[in-house]
Every structure is written in structure tokens, then in C-alpha cells.
């Protein structure tokens, strides 16, 4: 098919949503235009909505928040609605903690079955109603593209906190933030380990890292390799991808080990599951050949992927990573709500 790309200003998602590049920085942002007032509403839906400057700016902001010990009154009196149509205590708690530390408060829908969605209301209607109650909406939903739809019907900013197998940009931003605390992101060698087929956190992180000329090493069980379409897209953006058979093969070459959960449901029986998890398990023994500055990350919760003895090694950064969710989400809220 013929290419019809307009790079500088193209209507991309919706008639009302436009990706525009601003000034000389080439900042990509998604706004929806309120026809009446001409006001712009900023949404954060996918890590792909950011370019490198946008990411760096947000991480700088998170760092500044961290320096100020994570409190401010920047969003005093503002109200955040957290709409979670799927359970996720951590993501939700860290968004709630983030708004509280900025002086704002949270409105949340108790349990999923208590909300009107369960009574058959469309998401579009729920969003139209809730955007009248709150100054921004954080949404987690089982359907892919749900957050885009929400942005289309919302009159306030929408932040995607995970849409099915789709996007989860706050996770990617906090992953990047954690890497940046230890080393410059530019040009790192990173290993993605585990379920690379369904692991959306690994996918989004890989796409974001393609902006930083990182080199990707992969190790995954048979059948759970990086999807070919994503691999092709990454290679096209100039990323080098090196598949390995074992963690041993790559451990001395990488700066970051990003471990993801391999779900029991992906395997026909418990025996094959244990076979796989034991051969991909991160242990202090495996790490003896690692670079001194190597960091181990995991989006949590972990099950058997990382031996608890690793927790005490200087390489272990996964709890730090989870804690970083708060300043990063504070920066995201400030970006869209201020």
C-alpha cells in the first residue's frame, strides 16, 4: 500500500485527537480539543505517544519530586478518579499515593461489580459521567484500546493504567526511571527474560528503549519469544536484538536484567512449567559472572523467577523500582493536571 504519512502534523487517532509536534523539540503529545472552549486536554495513553524528549522531561520531573522528598501542593484540591475495571492493587495504590502527596484526593469505584459497568453501561457513558466528577481519570480496563476510547469521551485528562494486553505507560516510565538512577539509559545492553510473547511490560520497555539506542538481548521459553511483528518494528527503528538460549550466555554482557513473570497458564502441565521456571530462575550463582553495576528489575509480583537470596545483593533493584512508581506517577499527574 502507498505510504501516506505526514510527519509533522497528522490526524492520527480521532478527528478530535491530534499528535502534534511542538516547537523545535519535536515533542509529540496527544491532546483532545474541546470544541466549545478550544481548551486542550492532555492524555497519557501509550508510551508510543512520547518521544525521547517527552520521556526525559517527565523523568526529570520525577527526579525533582524525589529530591523534594516526594511532597508538594502542586495539585492542591484536585480530584483524581481511579476507574479500575480489573483488579490491580499496586498500580491503583501508587496512583492514589501520588495524588495524595500532591495535595489532591481520590474518587474510586469500590469494587468492579458494584459499578454500573457491570449493569451493562457502556464505558463511553461511564467516562462521560465520571469526567464531570473529577479533574482527571486513571483507567485500567481488560479491553485493548479502552483508554483511547475513554480519552475520546472524557472532558478531563485520561491516564492509561493498563488496557488488557495493550499499553501500560506508567510501568514503562518507572522502569526507565529506575534504570536512569543507576546509569545513563543511552546505549545500554539490556536482557529481557521470561515471557516475552505476552509480557506487555517487556514490549513497551523495548519500544521505549529503541529511542535510546539500547541493545536488546532476549531469553525466553519456547513459544514465548518476542512477537515477530514487534521484533521487526524494533529492528526497523535501528535496534539490535540478540536472542540467547540461556541466561548464562548473556549475563556477562548486560547492564540491565529485566525479568518478567512466566504464567503458569501458559503451560500444558505443572511439570513443564516448573522445568521452565527453574531454568530461567535468577540466582546469586547465576549473577557471579555479572558486571558489577548490573541491575535486576522485575515489574512484580514475582513468583519463582527470582531467588529471594538475590534480594540482598546490590544488583537487586525491583523493590526500588516499585517504590519509584510513586514519583513517576506524581510527575505524570502533574503533566496532565496542572
Amino acid at each position, binding site marked *: *500500500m502507498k505510504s*501516506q*504519512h*505526514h510527519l509533522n502534523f497528522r490526524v*492520527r487517532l*480521532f478527528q478530535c485527537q491530534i499528535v502534534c509536534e511542538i516547537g523545535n523539540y519535536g515533542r509529540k503529545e496527544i491532546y483532545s480539543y474541546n470544541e466549545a472552549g478550544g481548551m486542550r486536554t492532555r492524555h497519557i495513553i501509550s508510551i508510543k505517544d512520547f518521544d525521547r524528549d517527552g520521556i526525559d522531561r517527565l523523568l526529570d520531573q520525577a527526579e525533582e519530586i524525589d529530591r523534594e522528598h516526594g511532597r508538594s501542593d502542586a495539585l492542591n484540591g484536585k480530584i483524581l478518579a481511579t476507574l479500575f475495571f480489573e483488579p490491580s492493587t499496586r498500580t491503583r495504590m501508587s496512583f492514589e499515593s501520588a495524588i495524595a502527596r500532591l495535595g489532591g484526593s481520590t474518587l474510586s469505584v469500590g469494587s468492579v461489580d458494584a459499578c454500573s459497568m457491570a449493569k451493562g453501561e457502556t464505558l*463511553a457513558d461511564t467516562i462521560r459521567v465520571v469526567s464531570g466528577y473529577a479533574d482527571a481519570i486513571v483507567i485500567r480496563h481488560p*479491553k*485493548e484500546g479502552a483508554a483511547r476510547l475513554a480519552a475520546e469521551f472524557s472532558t478531563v485528562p485520561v491516564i492509561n493504567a493498563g488496557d488488557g494486553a*495493550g499499553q501500560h505507560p506508567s510501568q514503562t516510565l518507572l522502569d526507565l526511571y529506575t534504570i536512569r538512577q543507576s546509569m545513563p539509559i543511552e546505549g545500554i545492553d539490556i536482557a529481557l527474560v521470561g515471557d516475552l510473547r505476552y509480557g506487555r511490560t517487556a514490549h513497551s520497555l523495548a519500544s521505549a528503549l529503541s529511542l535510546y539506542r539500547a541493545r536488546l538481548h532476549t531469553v525466553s521459553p519456547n513459544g514465548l519469544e518476542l512477537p515477530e511483528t514487534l521484533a521487526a518494528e524494533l529492528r526497523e527503528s535501528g535496534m539490535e536484538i540478540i536472542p540467547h538460549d540461556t541466561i548464562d550466555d548473556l549475563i556477562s554482557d548486560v547492564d540491565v536484567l529485566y525479568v518478567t513473570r512466566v504464567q503458569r497458564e501458559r503451560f500444558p502441565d505443572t511439570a513443564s512449567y516448573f522445568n521452565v521456571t527453574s531454568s530461567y530462575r535468577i540466582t546469586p550463582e547465576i549473577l557471579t559472572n555479572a558486571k558489577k553495576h548490573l541491575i535486576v528489575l522485575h515489574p512484580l509480583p514475582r513468583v519463582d523467577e527470582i531467588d529471594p537470596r538475590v534480594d540482598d545483593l546490590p544488583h537487586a533493584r525491583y523493590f526500588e523500582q516499585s517504590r519509584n512508581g510513586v514519583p513517576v506517577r506524581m510527575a505524570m499527574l502533574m503533566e496532565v493536571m496542572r
Partner: protein
Amino acid sequence: MKNQETGDNEGLLVRRIKNGTVIDHIDGGEALNVVKILGITGTTQEALSIATNVQSRNMERKDIVKLTNRELSKEEVNRIALISPRATINIIRNFKVVEKKGVEIPHLIEGIVRCPNPGCISNTNEPIRSRFEVVPKGLHCCYCDWMITKDLTSNII
């Protein structure tokens, strides 16, 4: 020397129309998809004739669709480009071809195509139409990011 190419066969198959549109040079076998993509069904009003696998001047097979009393909008014409980029549109008034134009691949396609991802929000009862961005590799779902790279016609709604 009119009707040197296909016209003779075609003339046998399809009567001349007074006013309407002739969609010519449709890739062989795609006529029914063209009709589908225009949203024409048994319950719509147009008088319609279809000729498929007609021998064309360059020996390739082509299809032709003739619609009586209907002139297609630009947007409708562009949908046709998705399945048959070489098609030509002839507007007929009083038996004469008064306008002839090619088709152009649109940037954005709304409705028409269904997202093949069963987990996509566009496949639910939400009050939205499917929306795809046309990129070099195929159609990119604006909601879930899936790409349709082949067999587009089987995803036409």
C-alpha cells in the same frame, strides 16, 4: 472504434445506464467486495449490475460495477482503493461519461473494516466505529494498535 477492449463482452452482460456510476478496472474477482465496501445490500435502493472476470485490453481479467442513479462521494471512492487501487470511477449523465477519475488510498478508515483483535474495544457495544490509520505496512487499529497486513477483505464489515 468504440468498445474495442471489453466493451463487446461487457455490452452483452450489462445494459447501458442513463445516470449513475461505472466503477471500471476493478481487480478481477473483487467486484463483490467493492459492493460490500460501499455498503450496498439487498435492502438498499440502487439498481446494480456487476460483471466479473471480463477480458480487458491488456488481457488481464477485470470486474465492473455499475450503479444506477447514484454518484459516489469522494470518501466512498477512496474506500474502493483499499481493495482495488487501479479502479477508475466514471460518472455517467445522460448515457455519457462526464467525469473519470482514479481512486486514492485514504489516511483514515472509519467503520468498514473490523479489527481482527478479539480483545479490541472496537469489537464491543461501545458507541464508536472502528478506526484504522493507513500505513505502509497495512491498516493500523487506532484503538488497540494491531496491524492488518493481509487478507483485508475478510475483515470488511
